[in-house]
């Protein structure tokens, strides 16, 4: 019982949070120096789930140790945020001043979802690119793809040509262009690049189950942020009127 209480006190302490964020910042700083100096080592880090990348680069521990530490610190931070929020809700929740008390805790919950999304993205999912000409049919990751047509366009003021790919995914027609992927069966399909002369395009397939939690986190964050704004502004109005 004493051990549990000691652990709870550790996680509930603001001092713990400050140490965790302080050290995490130093690790991010270290990473920002290490990555640009070792581009060859880190070349694939953004293309495959983080844990798989780490297992492939096991022999590069001198350049990747900070990522392991960062994962450990983010995990402790995750637990710390969760316990602090539960504690605050239990101790202070009530109908009176509910928005003021609960908004910061819901905001913490959003951060928990976002970190969870990052965690899932680090474990699962895939990214794959395939180069296809118009009328080509290819089977990728269980999806049958066929490009029907590629349109090219340039708007006034643009510094490059844009493209729109008309594609069939398992026989279903989709239009994909820069910034507008197609979503089908949990996978996103991107028109990553296109060549007008050869009438070919690179289609990117992205399956990232962490994105769903990122979206939930983002929505919860925005809603709770409005709660924080509302609570602060009502407090200011109350003080001004007093």
């Amino acid at each position: 019982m004493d051990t549990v209480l000691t652990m709870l006190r550790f996680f509930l302490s603001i001092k713990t949070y400050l140490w965790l964020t302080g050290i995490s910042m130093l690790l991010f700083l270290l990473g920002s120096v290490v990555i640009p100096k070792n581009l060859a080592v880190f070349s694939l880090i953004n293309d495959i789930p983080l844990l798989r990348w780490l297992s492939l680069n096991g022999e590069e521990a001198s350049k990747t140790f900070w990522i392991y530490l960062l994962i450990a610190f983010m995990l402790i931070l995750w637990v710390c945020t969760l316990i602090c929020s539960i504690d605050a809700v239990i101790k202070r929740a009530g109908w009176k001043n509910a928005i003021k008390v609960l908004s910061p805790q819901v905001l913490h919950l959003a951060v928990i979802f976002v970190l969870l999304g990052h965690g899932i993205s680090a474990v699962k999912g895939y990214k794959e690119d395939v180069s296809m000409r118009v009328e080509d049919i290819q089977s990728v990751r269980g999806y049958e793809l066929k490009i029907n047509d590629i349109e090219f366009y340039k708007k006034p003021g643009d510094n490059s040509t844009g493209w729109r790919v008309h594609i069939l995914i398992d026989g279903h027609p989709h239009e994909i262009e820069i910034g507008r992927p197609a979503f089908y069966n949990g996978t996103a399909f991107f028109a990553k690049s296109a060549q007008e002369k050869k009438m070919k395009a690179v289609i990117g397939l992205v399956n990232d189950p962490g994105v769903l939690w990122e979206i939930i986190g983002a929505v919860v964050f925005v809603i709770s942020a409005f709660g924080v704004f509302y609570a602060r502004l009502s407090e200011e109005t109350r003080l001004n009127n007093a």
Partner: protein
Amino acid sequence: MINLFAMLAFIVLYSFSLAGGKHGRLFFIFGLLLHSGYIIYRAFHLGWPPVTERHDILLLMAAGVAYSFFYFQKKASHGMLLEILPLFVIIFSFFAVFQARFDTIDPNMRSKWFFIHIAFLIAGYALFAAGSAAGILYLKTRSALYETMQYRLTLYGWLFFSFSLIGGSVWFFLAYGVYWLWTAKELWITIVWFYFSFYLHGRIFRPFAGRPAALIGIGGFPVMIFSYLGVMPILGSPWTQF
């Protein structure tokens, strides 16, 4: 050449305003009028909101700080305000002068998510800078009102900055299929987010209350400036126009 002349003119006017008093206020208002006019001119020149290149973004951040002058005046007018606030406006504007102008738009930037990303980034950074100004006023005057203002401005800045990260993640995912990258730039953006989170939590940690917390908050300004302007040339992060 006319661009440079206009920018130098409002920077000089802001510099004269540092003298304070009635004349300082007049110089500040004239500087702000010219500054706002220049931003409107840039919008017409680009045919698009001026949020696609670093030059315009820095000038919008500077304008955001300058407009916070009226908030300060309403809340806690102090003669010293004009000795401090214009400094932050001048720093942003000074850096803007040295940024290349491209006057073209990448088709990827014609996205509402990109606009949301940059608009909230501008608001967040301007609020962080205004918060730092309030922090300096607190250190100089010892008025608790400025300490509260520093906290509120930084809190709102942090929320807006978080909105910017959400918008940026959605934009980047829709454009490239990833919502976060392991690059020096992204790591520094995360440092900025954690830094101000550290300040917001540290303020309620008793040993940091008052002067230490104010100093931590003010320290966020150089961190933020380095994240936006220093990471690419000094650490070697991939080049971006914005």
